[in-house]
């Protein structure tokens, strides 16, 4: 297992970035995501404009992978419709499960595509998918 495939510069940048780590002024929906066995703990906040996710942010703590994955997801879904966001969640989870491996199909995940190699580290898969499951929960609520 080559660590440089996991701890890439992009992941490090996202995990330490504060751009998406904040509270929204106006919150339409929020949801806590928690990995009880390891302590990754985030709260996702969303602001909607009709069907569009107008703004999104998160707070919380966790490992570099969980925090980077959350930040990347927020970059990706901001400005998208709920339906588009749910489709991206499915694509991301399929990528992690190695059900979708075609890079062209995965391109729409933008930066989050770098988390593809997390499937080589089974112990860390739950860190990578935490935010995405949380988003699915909050949209479907």
């Amino acid at each position, binding site marked *: 297992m080559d*660590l440089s495939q996991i701890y890439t510069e992009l992941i490090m940048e996202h995990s330490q970035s504060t751009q998406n780590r904040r509270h929204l002024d106006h919150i339409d929906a929020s949801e806590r995501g928690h990995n009880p066995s*390891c*302590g990754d703990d985030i709260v996702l906040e969303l602001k909607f404009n009709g069907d569009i996710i107008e703004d999104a942010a998160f707070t919380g*703590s966790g490992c*570099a*992978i969980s925090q980077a994955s959350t930040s990347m997801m927020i970059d990706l879904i901001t400005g998208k419709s709920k339906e588009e966001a749910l489709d991206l969640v499915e694509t991301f989870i399929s990528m992690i499960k190695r059900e979708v491996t075609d890079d062209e199909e995965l391109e729409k995940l933008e930066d989050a595509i770098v988390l593809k190699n997390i499937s080589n580290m089974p112990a*860390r898969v739950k860190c990578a998918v935490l935010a995405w499951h949380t988003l699915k929960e909050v949209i479907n609520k």
Partner: protein
Amino acid sequence: MREFNVDEIRKDFPILSQTVNEKSLVYLDNAATTHKPIQVLEAVSEYHHLHNGNPHRGSHYLSIKATEDYENTREKVRKFINAASEKEIIFTKNATESLNLLAYSYGMNFINAGDEIVLCISEHHSNLVPWQKVAKAKGAVLKFMYLSSDYRLTMEEVKAKITNKTKLVSLAFMSNVLGTIYPAGEVAEYAHSKGAVVIIDGAQAVPHMKVDVRDIDADFFVFSGHKMLAPMGIGVLYGKENLLEKMPPFLMGGDMIEYVEEQDTTFAELPYKFEAGTQNVEGAVGLSAAIDYLEDIGLNRIHEYELQLTGYALEKMLEIPYVKIYGPTDLENRGGVISFSIEGCHPHDTASIVDTYGVAIRAGHHCAQPLMKYLGAPATSRASFYFYNKKEEIDIFIESIKSVRKWLGYGS
């Protein structure tokens, strides 16, 4: 008693000689579970090859052999922890089941509304969640003893929390997170003076040091086999005979009965009253071989050697400016468990990174979420040693933790 030679000892543990991620395995997760020497593996295998039968039931040869194997282990455990009688040794699945047995059979029947149950803040969930349940069900008050700044439990704190209303005190002998060895005997003496019953969770102590339940004067004492070279799935509950005698059975079924009528049952004598259903005989056989192995090396020598390793690791870790240690930094009343964090790095990243160096450590809350909250840490990394670890392995561990910050984008 055999000579204490780690290289020779390691030959008994085939699993330690493998490579992980193309590196030699450095196994430092012994507080989670320990490896099994060939002597234990062979004893279990021999049981299956030659003696397997359902104990206490048949009159045929194999059932009798299985009964002998099982009951011989009971006597061995009795001697190992210096209990007064074999009736006081109950086999369970592990320390967790032993504590649940106590919560259901003792707690639910002898704790009443307004009574106090006192625990230490560092308890493992297995010695905390069952008591929350008892306290809620019975209207009892759950109280916690907190730690001093050097991660120790002072007698002032003990005396402040244990009162005349305290009916039960349950305390880990050694913290699975901090490595602190608590003054179990002193706590028991004080609790008894207030009329409370005392449970000591010995899961982290029994594998590493000589324990005498009568010297501590614990009313109940629990531990797991798999943390002391035995297979998973065998554990022990020790209890004073007069207390076990008045407790109702925990699980009902075969082998724990005396007479069964359509509507009523009388129960078997101790210890069988608490052992319903076919028991883990092969686990008991493994536990017996594990005790032989540990006694052949000597628990005092094991403790002394592990303290040397711990002292060496602490010294090296304290030299690293960005490492924080959660636990005593001196060796007094301490065991070979070191929890730590690396500034700016989440413990899970730390554990994953050192794993690529072949180093197995644990990361997370170590089944002690209230302690993590008390320490103000979301999680920690933890290295824990056993007598088969070597100084050279600690050097590899230290090198691996020095690499963590580099991988996470820090200069050093």
